[in-house]
């Protein structure tokens, strides 16, 4: 795979803009939840089950869903951090599976990931300035003095006070740690940034700061963003397109405004209505779902959502609905609501 260093030219970007920067084609990923022994076979379940997604250059796609729906696994598949059990994960036209170890490592200059646990993803022992510089060291970008300058510029860009650059992570607050993680991820000037719950561990006022920062940097650097979150309010603020996942599958995917203002899958509808709105005057319809989501280890037959669905029909247990597109809005439901 060819990886160009530095800034991509505008012409280059324009010529590539038609094909997606990253795509997954019918990917699945299984995990073993009971190891094999002499007497019995191993049991596994699909955390991600036959998902296809395209990420267009410059867009922000949000993947939403509740815990255990497979959204984080999907993020890792797109990032090439995990091999799919089935299907292909393609970045810039190259299948991750076809890369050698060396090529895979240099592909990290183009794809970066931010995890939820900022404190955990930083080395507790090293000053943050060194850690922000480290990706340049790892990939041998520029001379040592250039690297330090770029690290400084990046720390300025994420607005981390200069007096904190020599601090170790435990001396920073959660918000500051997340700024360092963002700086470290962006110093290689990647094309694609995958954010896995980047703000959910943060306090309300700090959350707003980080979201504002991400939106700012996104515009400046022309980033493509895959934004994984359970917080639908944050997603509404930041995303262009949204994919809703339930038990390893995408149940609805489309432009943000269409999905949020007129969800067509009963799960998406219930999920959206369950999010409280900070406005006592807002009168909203509630679609209260009963029960817990079934275990991904034993998904129901037919439609996976049928055990909690308010409009379940006999058909739902018999046949699994497929993801059906209506324009750029896809829905997986036998009885999806007509677009308004």
């Amino acid at each position, binding site marked *: 795979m060819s990886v160009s260093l530095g800034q991509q030219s505008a012409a280059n970007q324009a010529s590539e803009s038609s094909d997606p920067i990253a795509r997954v084609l019918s990917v699945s990923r299984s995990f073993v939840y009971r190891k094999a022994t002499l007497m019995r076979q191993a049991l596994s379940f699909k955390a991600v089950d036959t998902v296809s997604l395209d990420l267009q250059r410059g867009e922000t796609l949000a993947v939403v869903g509740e815990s255990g729906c497979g959204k984080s696994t999907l993020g890792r598949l797109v990032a090439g951090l995990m091999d799919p059990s089935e299907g292909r994960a393609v970045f810039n036209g190259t299948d991750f599976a076809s890369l050698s170890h060396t090529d895979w490592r240099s592909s990290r200059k183009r794809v970066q990931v931010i995890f939820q646990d900022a404190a955990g993803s930083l080395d507790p022992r090293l000053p943050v300035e060194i850690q922000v510089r480290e990706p340049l060291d790892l990939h041998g970008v520029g001379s040592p003095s250039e690297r330090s300058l770029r690290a400084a510029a990046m720390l300025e860009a994420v607005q981390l006070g200069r007096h904190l650059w020599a601090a170790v992570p435990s001396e920073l607050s959660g918000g500051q740690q997340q700024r360092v993680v963002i700086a470290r991820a962006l110093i290689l000037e990647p094309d694609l940034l995958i954010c896995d719950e980047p703000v959910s561990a943060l306090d309300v006022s700090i959350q707003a700061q980080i979201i504002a920062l991400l939106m700012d940097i996104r515009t400046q650097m022309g980033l493509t963003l895959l934004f994984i979150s359970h917080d639908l309010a944050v997603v509404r603020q930041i995303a262009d397109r949204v994919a809703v996942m339930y038990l390893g599958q995408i149940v609805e995917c489309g432009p943000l405004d269409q999905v949020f203002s007129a969800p067509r899958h009963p799960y998406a509808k219930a999920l959206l209505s369950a999010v409280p709105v900070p406005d006592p005057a807002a009168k909203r319809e509630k679609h*209260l779902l009963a029960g817990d989501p079934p275990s991904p280890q034993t998904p129901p037959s037919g439609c996976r959502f049928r055990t909690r669905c308010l409009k379940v029909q006999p058909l739902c247990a018999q046949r699994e609905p497929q993801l059906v597109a209506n324009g750029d809005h896809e829905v997986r439901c036998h009885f999806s609501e007509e677009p308004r």
Partner: protein
Amino acid sequence: MSTSSLLAVDSLVVSIKARGGDVVYPVRSASFALERGQTLALVGESGCGKSMTCLAISGLLPKRGAISHGRVVLDGLDLADQNPKAMRNIRRKQIAFVFQDAVNGLNPVKTIGWQIAEAVALREDVSWHRAKSRALDLLDRVGMPDPKTRVREFPHQLSGGMNQRAMIALAVAGQPKLLIADEATTALDVTIQAQILALIADLQREFGMAVIFVTHDLGLVAEMADAVAVMYAGRVVERAPVAELYAAPKHPYTAGLLNSLPRVDRRRETIQVIEGQVPPINAMPSGCAFGPRCGLATDECRTTSPNLVLASGGALACHHPLTGTPL
């Protein structure tokens, strides 16, 4: 503060002795009142003292903590003066707690039924057999699926939502006058959160309980509360009926929070950010604690801490309250 209120907290100060003899004050001044059957939301970011306030109310402060000033009056009785034994009786019958982490909040080696029955037996002198059957009724009441099986199961066998239902059953077993829900739904998924919120509202009506909702989620407050008390750095900085607070926040911190909050029902043009962070508990600035982050701060704010003053239907601690409607 009206004397007929179920609960009146007045200038509460909580101190904690740290190792080495230092004393810190997680709660510096908390005042609010709660009427019977009403819901008060105690809102603030982590470390603002909201949980500590509730632990102080119910006598559950850690060993090194103490109420060093102020009054907590429940039904005419000042709880700050009560001995541990009396407080235990009050927790058995009058104040109940629902904690955030239900899975770890329940004892892993006891069955769900045992733990609820224990709460029943602690409230009234009934046979263990009777307490057990009450436990089953309670589980049924809180909407536990298949309660006959669940009553014999252990916390690790249940989902997070089911554990929180069990925790609520345990809390209402004593038929309390006051239920304190401390971030009770924070760890749950949003569809499960909606179920639990509906359940609490339902039980509140049925038992006529007053509820204190401790949370950082302003969306949740808007849906659940009658009145709100906003805390910042150990102080209640603004108090108001919920509609008023959201329509016209007067404290710059409240307004800042509301303006910075993303909403699921519409996209904001811009997110207005409160710069900076909460000051550390052992290095509070002089004057108003919010001063260093406030755009309206003046010299007065930097020198004198504003007192909580009663104002139309609520109370406010600010030298320069906002008057207009928010953006």
